[in-house]
């Protein structure tokens, strides 16, 4: 075991043989050290009566990293110390990423719950002045459902059919071109999709025309590539044997696709589509340009007049800037997040229910 020939890096201190004889820190040492660092730092901060969770976490992390690195360098040598240091940093990275997630969800919940009730969800802002202590988001929910629904109706057929083309039919150059441009389309900034519809509408209907359909088309531009990518992946999971069994029975290719391939991948396709909906339902920038941001009444007609929706509602309330407006914005944000989370969990459940079919 203790041959001295190969050592992967020159990070060690002392000769390799020396390194083998070094001791190692006990297994539970990091956990104990972390706990004691946290306790000591909390004690010091409380003594100076300047306790804050962020400060506490930060100082604990610094103390832990310094102590474990020096302790390990003393007992285990430089290479092990570096390893322990990196381990601490990598854990820290993950915790740092969780901070904004927890913070966003917590602030939205805490501030949104103030106004979030049956009244808020069931009335519109029609006849409500911005500073009045009244009004709700019903009209925005209606708009979000209508616009996202229409965007889904446009995107799903185009997206799924393109995926079918890429998986079942396409070959050679055209296939590569379409795959490349679907990737490019994924990267279109949402505001540019909005501007595209503005430009199109100016040519078709003249300037200043805003309605729900324009928003739906802008969202479709963003949604189609997402649907294509996820559907393509799902269709590729369908075993080739199933297709060949179908061909062997003399079933034509298009019947094979509609009767064998699509039903087999139905669960995955639905999951992908719901994730795509969740992705675009919170899009704001294109809707500010296309559906207008001043509608206050309930409007079910996609082709006539401005149409409020949840993201734009949040934005326009923030722009008004009063205390009541902020309360409304938070409550609407809570509504929007609940809708998105619901879609996410439904997608997970559907995906899990249908997933084993292919294996």
């Amino acid at each position: 075991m203790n041959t001295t020939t190969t050592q992967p890096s020159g990070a060690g201190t002392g000769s390799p043989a020396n390194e083998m004889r070094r001791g190692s820190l006990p297994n539970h040492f990091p956990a104990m050290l972390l706990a004691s660092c946290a306790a000591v730092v909390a004690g010091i901060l409380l003594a100076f009566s300047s306790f804050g969770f962020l400060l506490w976490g930060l100082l604990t992390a610094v103390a832990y990293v310094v102590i474990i690195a020096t302790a390990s360098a003393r007992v285990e040598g430089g290479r092990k110390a570096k390893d322990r240091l990196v381990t601490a940093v990598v854990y820290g990275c993950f915790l740092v990423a969780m901070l904004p997630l927890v913070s966003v969800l917590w602030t939205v919940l805490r501030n949104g719950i103030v106004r979030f009730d049956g009244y808020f969800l069931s009335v519109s802002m029609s006849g409500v002045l911005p500073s009045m202590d009244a009004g709700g988001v019903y009209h925005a929910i209606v708009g979000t459902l209508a616009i996202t629904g229409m965007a889904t109706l446009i995107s799903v057929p185009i997206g799924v059919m393109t995926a079918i083309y890429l998986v079942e039919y396409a070959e050679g150059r055209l296939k590569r071109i379409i795959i490349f441009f679907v990737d490019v389309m994924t990267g279109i900034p949402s505001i540019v999709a909005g501007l595209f519809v503005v430009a199109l509408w100016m040519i078709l209907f003249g300037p200043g025309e805003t309605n729900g359909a324009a928003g739906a088309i802008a969202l479709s531009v963003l949604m189609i590539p997402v649907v294509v990518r996820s559907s393509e992946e799902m269709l590729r999971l369908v075993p080739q044997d199933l297709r060949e069994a179908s061909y062997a029975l003399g079933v034509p290719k298009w019947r094979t696709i509609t009767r064998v391939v699509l039903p087999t991948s139905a669960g995955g396709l639905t999951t992908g589509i719901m994730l795509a909906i969740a992705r675009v339902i919170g899009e704001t920038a294109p809707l500010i340009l296309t559906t207008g941001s001043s509608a206050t009444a309930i409007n079910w007609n996609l082709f006539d007049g401005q149409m409020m929706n949840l993201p734009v509602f949040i934005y326009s309330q923030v722009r008004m800037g009063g205390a009541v407006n902020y309360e409304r914005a938070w409550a609407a944000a809570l509504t929007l997040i609940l809708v998105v989370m619901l879609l996410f969990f439904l997608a997970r459940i559907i995906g899990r229910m249908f997933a084993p079919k292919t294996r």
Partner: protein
Amino acid sequence: MTTTDAPEAAPPPTGKRRIGDVAFAGLARGSGLLILLILAGVAAFLVIQAWPSLTANTANFLASTEWDPNVREEPAFGVAALAFGTVLAAAIALLLATPVAIGIALFIVFYAPRRIASVLGYLVDLLAAIPSVVYGLWGIGFLAPELVPVYQAMVRYLGWIPLFSGPASTSARTMLTAGVVLAVMILPIITAMSRDVFQQTPQGHREAALAMGATRWEMIRLAVLPFGKSGVIGGAMLGLGRALGETMAVAMILSPALIVSWDLLQSGNQTIAAHIALQYPEATGYGVSALIAAGLVLFAITLIVNMAARYVVSRGSKES
């Protein structure tokens, strides 16, 4: 020509082609072509509608920093300040997000307990599920007030660095705040790409490193990072593309000014996307057309960044 390697290229039943087959294949092909058409349409309509203002513009569109297109005659506008702000905000976001994202990806693939690793990955993906307008609301309603004392401390102790020169904004509605929020928003995409390539590191390389007595970090440095480099770079560039085009977080947080300024702790600067969202409702005269021209610049920048990212990623996966 390349039919042999494609698994889906199994020969359909021979004989004469049925009408259903022809129609269905046509429909599928038509959808694919429609996507190309839509993309071409995006570029074409933007150019058509931007043209009137660009030809009427009396200032240099690429070099000027003023924005005065809302008139019937002699509009003068340029995207220099906006383009600078866009790149600056995205660069801050990228610098903050990339190291953390690599750390998270390493954590999920190599450090987290196997059983909960996928759940932890799902938590990071949830960051991508939060709508941008909610991030904006969080940024202005919660984060910015919290950052005011931090910025004051930074000015006091780090003020000698030109980027952090004071006086610090009293509302913290600055470029750095916007950059922090953008960093959070692009974290999931960089993490996801890095995770994918780290997971593909050949088992043999990893075990060889460990068998030679390497610690976990040495294994990562010797086997994983060199293998995953192109994937991480590609992921970072996709994140950059996202950050360049992100509208709402910047529009709601930043207190804008059309200037070219490196002072991250003072209000000022503006990005193309946020400028479009804020100016559009008030645009008259050549205003809308000028905003479309600005959007065209943004489209071009993101297009180049995204294409470069795809190129880096695909070249990396071919090498392995």
